[in-house]
């Protein structure tokens, strides 16, 4: 690999967007923040990748025009929580091929009003035709049943998922950009209202408005080197139980290409739409022992021995629509650039996973990115 991430930024996450804020403004704000972090301006940009559920009726080229960007490379990704990894994969190849020199990857959404409700009701035709009419509003019920399957398969309890949520909230208390920062105890988690049994309030991400962006260029000293990017789409044709993600198949290649393995990882930013999916992805990446998942969570994550989602993750920072996938990439980049403030960890290698796009019963997209600090 010969590419690096040289800057990362966000549009502020909020549950209550200001009047007049629009999706394009959210995306532009995140892009400008990332460029400023990289010491660059829009005039330096010749490549743009965009992921957003609410940009319509505009497309990536409209956003480029509104942002005054003159480009030789442009793409729009539609895979939600997996979009960051997908866009990074294409951006890396573009830089390697000489199609662009400075690429901004940006993802985000304005989810004010009923935007989120409309989004989940018409997510795809399977949702529109076979889930929304049940009635089912959003995917919580699907992942509630997946969590039950995982509990049965791995011997996990609500206490174990609560430990993950509590650990991530602990990180969020150190992140001024997180929407939910007040300390969370296991008792708070267990006594919270049930949303879809066995999922409670703190198992479900809070939808927010916001955006995330990174800047990708050819490798340079002091930046975050991209060691590998691998993606998987529709790995099991929706024939499985959802407990194994596409990461299971691509992780060996990703580690091989990166030249490092799970034991070298100092930080994991995994797509945390639900604690059960954090567990599933960490197992698929080889970072959690499936034969002793509860023990692994206690030894590794609760103790902070393996920092996971140090921004607080989506569960505490908020899920800004399509930015959910980029959120982890921004956090990992900040950590490896040494710009994570109070929550800074000593990390040389990080892995970032993406997941998402529920086709009918569970997500079909999975991405993994391995990064290295060079500072």
């Amino acid at each position, binding site marked *: 690999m010969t590419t690096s991430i040289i800057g990362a930024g966000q549009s502020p996450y909020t549950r209550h967007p200001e009047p007049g804020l629009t999706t394009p403004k959210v995306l532009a704000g995140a892009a400008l923040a990332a460029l400023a972090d990289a010491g660059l301006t829009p005039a330096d940009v010749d490549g743009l990748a965009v992921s957003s559920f609410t940009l319509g009726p505009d497309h990536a080229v409209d956003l480029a025009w509104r942002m005054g960007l003159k480009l030789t490379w442009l793409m729009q990704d539609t895979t939600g929580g997996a979009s960051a990894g997908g866009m990074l994969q294409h951006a890396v190849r573009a830089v390697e091929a000489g199609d662009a020199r400075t690429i901004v990857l940006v993802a985000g959404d304005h989810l004010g009003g009923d935007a989120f409700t409309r989004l989940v009701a018409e997510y795809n035709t399977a949702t529109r035709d076979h889930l929304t009419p*049940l009635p*089912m509003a959003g995917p919580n*019920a699907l992942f*509630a*049943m997946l969590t039950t399957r995982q509990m049965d398969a791995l011997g996990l309890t609500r206490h174990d998922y609560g430990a993950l949520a509590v650990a991530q909230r602990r990180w969020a208390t150190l992140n001024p950009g997180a929407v939910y920062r007040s300390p969370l105890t296991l008792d708070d988690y267990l006594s919270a*209202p049930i949303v879809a049994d066995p999922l409670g309030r703190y198992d479900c991400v809070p939808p927010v408005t916001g955006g995330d962006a990174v800047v990708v260029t050819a490798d340079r000293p002091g930046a975050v080197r991209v060691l590998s990017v691998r993606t998987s789409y529709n790995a099991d044709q929706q024939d499985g139980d959802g407990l194994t993600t596409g990461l299971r198949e691509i992780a060996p290649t990703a580690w091989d290409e990166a030249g490092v393995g799970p034991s070298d990882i100092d930080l994991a930013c995994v797509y945390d739409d639900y604690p059960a999916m954090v567990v599933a992805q960490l197992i698929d990446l080889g970072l959690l022992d499936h034969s002793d998942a509860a023990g692994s969570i206690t030894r590794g994550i609760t103790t902070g021995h393996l920092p996971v989602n140090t921004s607080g993750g989506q569960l505490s920072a908020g899920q800004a629509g399509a930015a959910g996938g980029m959120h982890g990439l921004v956090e990992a980049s900040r950590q490896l650039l040494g710009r994570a403030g109070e929550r800074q960890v000593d990390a040389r290698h990080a892995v970032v996973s993406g997941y998402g796009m529920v086709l009918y019963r569970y997500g079909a997209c999975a991405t993994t990115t391995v990064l290295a600090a060079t500072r």
Partner: protein
Amino acid sequence: MTPRHASRRRTAGIDVQQCRDCHRRLFPDRLICPTCGGTDFGVATIERGRIEQVTVLADGTVLASISTADDGPTLIARLIGSADPADETRLTGDAEDPGPAAFVPGGAPTSSTPTRTTP
């Protein structure tokens, strides 16, 4: 409920897509059979399934994951009447079915995917 679902309502099971080449039953519909690559589909009716997992929503709605026999599709349903995991249940495409049953919102299974090119 959209007119599409109302027009295909049935109480004795649900209609799903069936590949005419390998006979695999698929739900939701596909354009190309993921098992054999076929594009010629018919309709099969599945009348019963087994409840795998159940979740109760905050408003009391009970949803379930339902497996069907002979490697049939796994369905997401709303339970009408009480039932537990491992129970067998009748499937219905009628949201107003008095139950006990599992309501699976359907739609008209799509038929063959056009593959012939014009001469």
